[in-house]
């Protein structure tokens, strides 16, 4: 993650990490999550799912759990989960 200035408490600050958990076969490849993710985490994969669509995948670790993709996904295919080992969000 890039900062425009170094946070004063960076030494003891822990950033929580999240990732997008996709029910691959539900994705219909509409691309809404890719377009509207504010941190550009998602992209269309080259692979096909069982329904013949290109499902999404995460291209980086920048997810901040804003929840927009989860809410916007018309297929109820996306859940955001905490990355393993990361501390729980308050």
């Amino acid at each position, binding site marked *: 993650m890039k900062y425009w200035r170094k946070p004063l408490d960076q030494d003891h600050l822990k950033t929580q990490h999240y990732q997008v958990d996709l029910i691959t076969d*539900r994705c219909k490849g*509409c691309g809404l999550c890719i377009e509207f993710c504010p941190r550009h985490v998602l992209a269309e994969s080259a692979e096909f799912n069982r329904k013949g669509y290109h499902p999404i995948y995460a291209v980086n670790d920048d997810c901040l759990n804003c929840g927009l993709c989860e809410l916007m996904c*018309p297929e109820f295919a996306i859940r955001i989960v905490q990355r393993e080992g990361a501390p729980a969000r308050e």
Partner: protein
Amino acid sequence: MTQEYSAGRYYPGELLREDRMPHIWCPGCGMGSILHGFLNGLHQSGLPLDKVAIVSGIGCAGRVAGYVKLDSFHTTHGRAIPFATGLKLANPELKVIVFSGDGDLVSIGGNHFIHAARRNMDLTVILVNNFTYGMTGGQFGPTTPLDARTATSRYGSYEPTFNVPNLAEASGAVYIARWTALHLRQMEQSFTEALHKKGFSLVEVISPCPTLYGRMNRQPRGLDQMKYYQQNSIIQHGADTRTVGIELNGKITVGKFIDIERPAYTDIKTRVYEKAFAPKPAAPAKTTAEASSK
């Protein structure tokens, strides 16, 4: 039912018939997003779920009833509102929600829509407006903007349209909001408010129909229509509903337009009945003077 959380956030899995997923809606259709927003709004409302019923008509939006894990009724084309009226009046404990489309609610069901609003029937109506008859293949309807091309208006639609919020206000609705499928957080908020409003509340949600309406009007992907909403929506709470009509490729005014108080149908009815059935005051006892004069 147990509440599900997604990384600390509520997730409406408990309200969704997961055994019926994937749903029938096309890729890029706004219905799924709107349904998610609705379920979140319903959760936030805190209403007891055993006492919530959903009634849908026919069409793409009419399929919502089948995906929601509540008492849910998929009725006939245009008739969700009278069915819901019967349900609500027969069991006033129920919160009855009508979830249907523009063709269903303001074309074939237009008469029921205006009369339920006139009565101020205690219903929450969610009208998903995709400007077309989606399920039957994209014909024009009463909300299709002038000049829009559809399966039955190949040269452009030449019928003037209904401005739905204005129609509802003129008919007597007490709560009217409009959002697009992109305004997910605002939509949630409006759903919650509408569910708590006594009387006829309406939330209109503009939704992409990429397969039919979008494809014939140069927005072939749901994404194109969502971007169009992003660039052309103007949030204007309290806007005069006469000014919120929608034109092809024009601006879309969104926001909460109406939130007024007016006695609901049952309130007025109860008042009339109470007056009619009030025990009559006992006749004053005759005075001795009156009695002796006879």
